[in-house]
C-alpha cells in the first residue's frame, strides 16, 4: 500500500545550525503538504507544493518537490528554539488519498 516515509526520524541540532528532513513516497503524488506539530499540539499547515521541481520559501524554511513528484524536502536555515517540533509531510496521491509521513522530530539545543 501507499507509504510516505521521512528521514531522519529524530534530529538534534545546535541552535543556528541548519536542518533538513526528507520525505519519500512509494508512489507518485499529485501534491504534497507540510505540517508542523509542536510538542503536545496539533498539526499546523505550513505549505503545499503542486508542481514537479517546485521550490517555495517561507523565511528560513525552504520546501522542495522532486522532479518525479515522489519526494520532497524541508530545509530550515539557522535553526531557532522556536523551530522545535515534529515536521510531517503529507502526500496526496493521484487517487486523491491523503497520507501523512512518519514525521521528523526536531530538537534545537540552545
Amino acid at each position, binding site marked *: 500500500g501507499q507509504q510516505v516515509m521521512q528521514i531522519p526520524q529524530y534530529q538534534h541540532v545546535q541552535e543556528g545550525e541548519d536542518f533538513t528532513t526528507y520525505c519519500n513516497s512509494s508512489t507518485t503524488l499529485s501534491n504534497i503538504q507540510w505540517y508542523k506539530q509542536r510538542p503536545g499540539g496539533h498539526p499546523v499547515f505550513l505549505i*503545499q507544493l503542486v508542481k514537479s521541481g517546485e521550490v517555495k520559501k517561507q523565511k528560513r524554511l525552504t520546501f522542495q518537490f522532486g522532479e518525479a513528484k515522489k519526494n520532497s524536502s524541508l530545509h530550515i536555515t539557522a535553526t531557532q528554539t522556536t523551530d522545535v517540533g515534529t515536521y510531517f509531510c503529507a502526500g496526496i496521491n493521484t487517487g486523491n488519498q491523503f497520507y501523512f509521513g512518519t514525521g521528523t522530530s526536531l530538537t534545537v539545543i540552545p
Partner: protein
Amino acid sequence: EPEVTQTPSHQVTQMGQEVILRCVPISNHLYFYWYRQILGQKVEFLVSFYNNEISEKSEIFDDQFSVERPDGSNFTLKIRSTKLEDSAMYFCASSPRARGLNTEAFFGQGTRLTVV
C-alpha cells in the same frame, strides 16, 4: 480567527464502552476529517466526510467506527466498543475544498482518548 474545536479534550473510558468524540469544524468548510495519533507516532488518516457521506476511509476505520454530522455544525466520531489499542489522540480537521485542490486542512486541538 476561526478554528476547529473538539470536545472533550480528554476522555477516559473502560474497554468495551462506546465513546463519542465531538468536533465543530470551521463554519464555511465543506470537507471534514478524523485522524488519530498514537503517542509518539505519526498522524494516521481515519475518514473523510463530504456532502453528508463518507468520501474515503482507511483500513483502520472498521465497523467499530462511525461518523455523523447530526445538525449541520457538529461532526462526531463514534467508537462502538473501545479496545485498549484505540487509546490515542484523535484530531478532527476541516477544509474548504477537497484535498487535491490546493487547500490546507485546519486541525482541532485533539481529544486524548484513554481506554482502560
